[in-house]
């Protein structure tokens, strides 16, 4: 399926990546080319085939529901672009 500029704008929004207007057409062509190549998958008969999300047969292991670490606010904030008195500082979320 060919992707047009409007779809690129929508996908960029979903991906939270700003794309300048003058780049939309170029990206549309690029992504369309990749998707056209991907569409050869339609040649494969997958009737009745179970989707494979993991190569492992084992089920997810469980552990005791107990606290294993924590209490490291200073360590966690050490890489923050902005922090203040033990908190991450982020742009205003609620108007």
């Amino acid at each position, binding site marked *: 399926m060919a*992707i047009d500029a409007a*779809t*690129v704008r929508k*996908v*960029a929004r*979903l*991906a*939270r*990546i*700003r*794309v300048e207007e003058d780049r939309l057409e170029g*990206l549309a062509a*690029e*992504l369309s*080319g*990749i*998707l056209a*190549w*991907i*569409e*050869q*998958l*339609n*040649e*494969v008969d*997958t009737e009745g*085939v*179970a*989707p*494979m*999300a*993991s*190569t*492992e047969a*084992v089920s*997810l*292991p469980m*552990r005791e529901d107990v606290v294993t670490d924590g209490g*490291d606010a200073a*360590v*966690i904030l*050490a*890489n*923050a*672009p*902005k922090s203040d008195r033990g908190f*991450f500082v*982020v*742009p*205003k*979320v609620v108007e």
Partner: protein
Amino acid sequence: MSELTHLTLKDALAGLKQRRFSAVELAQAHLDAIAAARALNAYVLETPEQALAMAAASDARLKAGEGGRLEGAALGIKDLFCTEGVRSTAGSRILGNFTPPYESTVTAKLWRDGAVMLGKLNMDEFAMGSSNETSAFGPVVNPWRSRGSNRPLTPGGSSGGSAAAVAADLALAATATDTGGSIRQPASFTGTVGIKPTYGRCSRWGIVAFASSLDQAGPLAKTVEDAAILLRSMSGHDPKDSTSLPSAVPDYPSFVGKSVKGLRIGVPKEYRAEGMPPEIETLWSDGVAWLKDAGCEVVEVSLPHTKYALPAYYIIAPAEASSNLARYDGMRYGLRVDGPTLTDTYEATRAAGFGDEVRRRVMIGAYVLSAGYYDAYYLKALKVRRRIADDFSAAFETADALLTPTAPSAAFGLGENTADPIAMYLNDIFTVTVNLAGLPGLSLPAGLDAQGLPLGLQLIGRAEDEATLFQLGGALEKAAAFRAKPAPWWRA
């Protein structure tokens, strides 16, 4: 003592144990070689102080008659591994000067065994690339050059820094990761040995995530035995990774040199790719002949869905990446570009922080997972993935391991494939099937092409059967007698 850098990992470990040289001397020889090889751009961060301190501690343990399996071994670490207190970037601007307050499980195991870190190695951004050209730090240059040419070549990707460092003797061995071929293709391009183990063999904890159902760590090394030594230390169950295999780790080095008599080698007919250089065909036939001479039985096998592996991969890997990379929002670590609203801040941060290839893949991932396309693309790809895994299961009914070329070409020129993403993706045509099926794959150098560039052969094994690959790899290595080294043109 620059000749110390020419040692194999095995010989270096033996020399350290016999106190023929110290771990500090070994580390210093590598640090000097690294400082003289900046033209290769293999390291994005050199850590000489840490290397010498770790080496001094190794010397103290060795002197006391103690020391682990890798005591004093000077290693390079791909910058995808989080290293405590040492900047880790994944080759991306978006991580900025991120300095992890924790150590990845794999590197922690290496330090537990006494290894010494020389520095962090260059790579494609978030391991997305086959030529190292998507790195925010610029491409690594392959130590190898075509005969009579100065044209810079790619070392492959995404573990290009790891492969170049090992090929140029800037580390005894290195850690790497492989999501679609990122250990094996660089190994093939640089005349080094690399293995992607079975999915789950190495813990993914503390490795920056790209596509979590495909990502695996593994070693790049100078010999098959060196790769076995390093993988033994890197492997093992980790409760912090829910997909980590609970199985015991075999003593991999003990399989190198074992007889391969009676093993059945499958040759998949679908790997005769159109337009494959005749030298690769010849090398592949040589490999088959070498294993026959060593007593193996050779059988033809069929992997009918091979050609669909790359298109399926380019749905599954971007889908997982778009989800994994959602964490780079500029709030808790890394780059932040402020905008008037929260959403503007997200969008500006990610536009400034991600390179073109990462942006492309995140957008494809968002698209194939979006409402209305999920079934047609993502679910379809997961079904094709099952077909590919079933192909391997059928092949392993008549074969104990498979032999294929590693890559469809030798190293190509920097800039040669950057304009066409699909041409770049096709580099992984022989390696990506293994990731989709979760199997182990080993690449080793087997010959040179007409231009004097190395070419690799790939062995593919059953799940959890890296041991047979080391056994067969040892036999192939002996028969191929690959001794070529690149001329050190880069030395400053």
